[in-house]
């Protein structure tokens, strides 16, 4: 396999191919920066060019883009409190307060550096576990998947701040909003009021933008503030680098967490960043500054969200099950190239798989550099008064929201959820648990339904279920008890 890996690197080193790799990186960075645009959009942008391309060229282009989306999406998360894509939601919790403290450069440098390390570690772990990944994935039945969604939901404990009951209620509200639309197994439609738009439920970008971005902007405008409270920026690149090196084990743990959760089919990457955030908080000896701008709250999610791209490729390549919208389109692209996902990706098409892994690692390095260089300059956005930033941001947000289904309902949903988010912010309700509940609503219902119709009560005794259940309890109780000792959660 090592010889094959070297051969794949030689294949990739072709100048034309590297050119395409850089083109992919460029598109990925752009898509990541624009809030609400996800990898799916980027993929559909490049897919038309894939036809008739040499598979090596096409993979360089496609994977170059996939690899860096979660690098660039840190900009809006940190600077504006707007989730750049679904992978960088947890970064907001501490990244945005850091920007408000004038530490935008430090936060960005730490985020990019840990993203890069995470991305490379992710590619490496992917390479190492690929031969044994198949039985690993096959060991996870529907009951185990349901328990994993519960583990994700248990992070509400960590994210609830001082009043766990509010966090849990917000999480339940998220589950309820997630229940809008078609039920997973039966053609029953819930809370749709016969509107075709609601048949598919509320879309994630709309919810994330409305919940976090709009309230933030409103408050900045009302207070006539800028994002950084002080007039100067403190802390720079070097500080960010030093932070990552100081917390290297956190980076390593969260990267591995990212790959492992990423490879769980059906759960995908949507909760990776939250679980690593929870891990960063729980493993820290001092927790007072979390939520108010603790760099560890940036490093945790950022090192896992690039690593997870490696993980999600396992179900995508070996089983043909996409873990996210991005990988769904990637799967389509592979089909166009004549590569059918399946066991053959480890035998006949091993070369293509290795090119994918290399691209992932290389693109992470260059993507990070491309983000780091201008980051000092871009960090100055936090000094611009909100009044001047707002018109631009509102348009970007609206475009991002409208992009998700291109239905007018998106715009109305965006404002309705924005209002809800603003009220929650004003009254001190934690918003991340709502997002977690929403993201996991469909998956938890689906796997519970399947477990029940397949096994009755007996699934509760599966060994994996018991282990995951105990872990979930520890996570939940630990998080809630910790909440009591935490100060009031800062801006989020």
């Amino acid at each position, binding site marked *: 396999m090592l010889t094959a890996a070297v051969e794949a690197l030689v294949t990739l080193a072709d100048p034309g191919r590297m050119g395409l790799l850089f083109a992919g990186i460029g598109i990925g960075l752009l898509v990541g920066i624009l809030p609400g645009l996800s990898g799916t959009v980027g993929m559909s942008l490049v897919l038309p060019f894939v036809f008739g391309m040499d598979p090596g060229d096409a993979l360089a282009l496609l994977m170059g883009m996939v690899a860096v989306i979660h690098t660039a999406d840190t900009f809006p998360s940190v600077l504006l409190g707007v989730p750049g894509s679904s992978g960088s939601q947890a970064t907001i919790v501490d990244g945005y307060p850091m920007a408000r403290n004038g530490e935008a450069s430090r936060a960005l440098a730490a985020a990019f550096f840990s993203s890069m390390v995470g991305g490379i570690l992710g590619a490496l772990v992917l390479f190492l576990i690929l031969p044994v990944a198949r039985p690993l994935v096959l060991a996870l039945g529907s009951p185990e998947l349901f328990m994993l969604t519960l583990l994700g939901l248990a992070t509400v404990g960590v994210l609830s701040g001082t009043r766990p009951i509010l966090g849990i209620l917000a999480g339940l509200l998220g589950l309820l909003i997630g229940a809008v639309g078609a039920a997973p197994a*039966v053609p029953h439609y819930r809370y749709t009021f016969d509107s075709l738009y609601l048949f598919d439920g509320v879309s994630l970008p709309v919810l994330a933008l409305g919940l976090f971005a709009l309230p933030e902007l409103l408050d900045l405008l009302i207070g006539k503030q800028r994002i950084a409270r002080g007039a100067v920026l403190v802390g720079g690149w070097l500080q960010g680098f030093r932070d990552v090196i100081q917390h290297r084990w956190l980076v390593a743990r969260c990267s591995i967490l990212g790959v492992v959760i990423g490879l769980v089919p059906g759960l995908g990457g949507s909760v990776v960043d939250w679980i690593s955030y929870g891990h960063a908080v729980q493993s820290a000896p001092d927790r007072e500054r979390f939520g108010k701008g603790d760099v560890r709250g940036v490093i945790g999610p950022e090192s896992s969200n690039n690593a997870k791209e490696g993980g999600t490729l396992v179900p995508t390549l070996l*089983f043909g099950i996409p873990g996210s919208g991005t990988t769904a389109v990637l799967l389509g692209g592979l089909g166009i190239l004549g590569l059918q996902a399946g066991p053959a990706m480890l035998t006949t098409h091993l070369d293509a798989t290795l090119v994918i892994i290399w691209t992932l690692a290389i693109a992470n390095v260059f993507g990070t550099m491309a983000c780091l260089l201008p980051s000092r300059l871009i960090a100055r956005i936090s000094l611009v008064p909100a009044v001047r930033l707002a018109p631009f941001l509102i348009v970007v947000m609206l475009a991002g929201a409208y992009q998700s289904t291109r239905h007018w309902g998106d715009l109305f949903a965006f404002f309705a959820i924005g209002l809800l988010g603003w009220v929650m912010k004003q009254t001190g309700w934690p918003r991340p648990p709502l997002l977690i509940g929403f993201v996991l609503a469909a998956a938890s219902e689906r796997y519970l339904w399947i477990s029940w119709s397949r096994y009755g009560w007996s699934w509760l005794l599966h060994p994996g279920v018991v282990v995951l259940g105990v872990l979930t309890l520890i996570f939940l109780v630990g998080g809630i008890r910790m909440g009591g000792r935490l100060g009031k959660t800062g801006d989020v």
Partner: protein
Amino acid sequence: MTGPSANSRSLGSASTLRVPAWLWIGLSCLVVAGCAEAPDLGERAVGEVYRGELLRIMVPFGPGGGSDTWARLIAPHLQRHLPEGARIQVVNVPGATSVAGANEYALRTRPDGRTIFVSAGSTFFVYLLGEPMVRYEFRDLEPLLASPSGGVVFVRPDLGVSSPRELSRVGERLLYGGISATGNDLLPLLAFEILGLEVTPILGYTSKGATRIAFQQGETNIEYQTTPAYLTNVVPLVEAGEAVPLFSFGMVDGQGQVIPDPAAPDLPTVADAYRAIHGRAPSGAAWEAYVAVLAAGVTMQKVLWIRQEAPASAVAELREAIADLIEDPAFLEPARRQLGDYPFLLADEIDEALRAGVGMSPEALEWLKDFLRERFQVDRI
């Protein structure tokens, strides 16, 4: 996307705060809806209609799915067979398992020949079943090209069966994993019903990839995959002794007869399996419903349509280009690799299959609805 953000430059510099939200909505509304009046294609001669024009293929699903890949496979090749300067763009309008896109195409696009539409099996199913949200009418659309895609049913070896006849004696141990009773799973569920198998359906999986994993895990033990997926992902399992193929769904020919699946010609069809189990040919309302659903879901798995009101010259030119397309080796080679070894169907053949599908007798339709209502709690139909 380009519209609103391009707009931001001019409006952003104004930096006023007093722009109310409704104005923003209104502006983006104008940008999206604002489409310059284009010349009428109907006034051009065949062979000239699409010269320099943009033809949109509307796909009622998101990017990356089967219909999207199908459209994107065809688009660049079809473009070569249209007059010079013609461009084809794939547009995704996802939502409500293709109902949103189909409604939009039938009711809200201009019938000017500049937009064509891809339907999938599920677009037919909801239409056949009379889902209240369906506003489109297939009779108002002209079929241009159809592409079949069959399916193969297989079981886990631990059931100890090797033929449909043995399968009918397994009893209640059969577990089937599917997505939803009103989607593509309708076909296998009907097949099980007709063959008299006692199958426990476990619905709610996200995709046929997920059900295949469940099958490999032993969470289920009877499973189907579309023929291309069967050939790439299941044949290796069969060779490794981890799956036993039993029958294919078959295909519907012009006379409404079920014939073997051309991509899996050696396997018995559901009709053959019925004969093997019951000793006579299948008939009756249930069988009629099966054939209709088979025609809609398999024979016309993907169909390219154009609005009936579109200019006749545009339709004629598209038909000519498509007739060339399906003879073009540069297209057929990648198509065969991706879609399996199926013949493409042109308008006349599609019309025949359509009659078999859409023209189900009232008794068969009522039987089908009762089946779904009683067994799968489908209460909307």
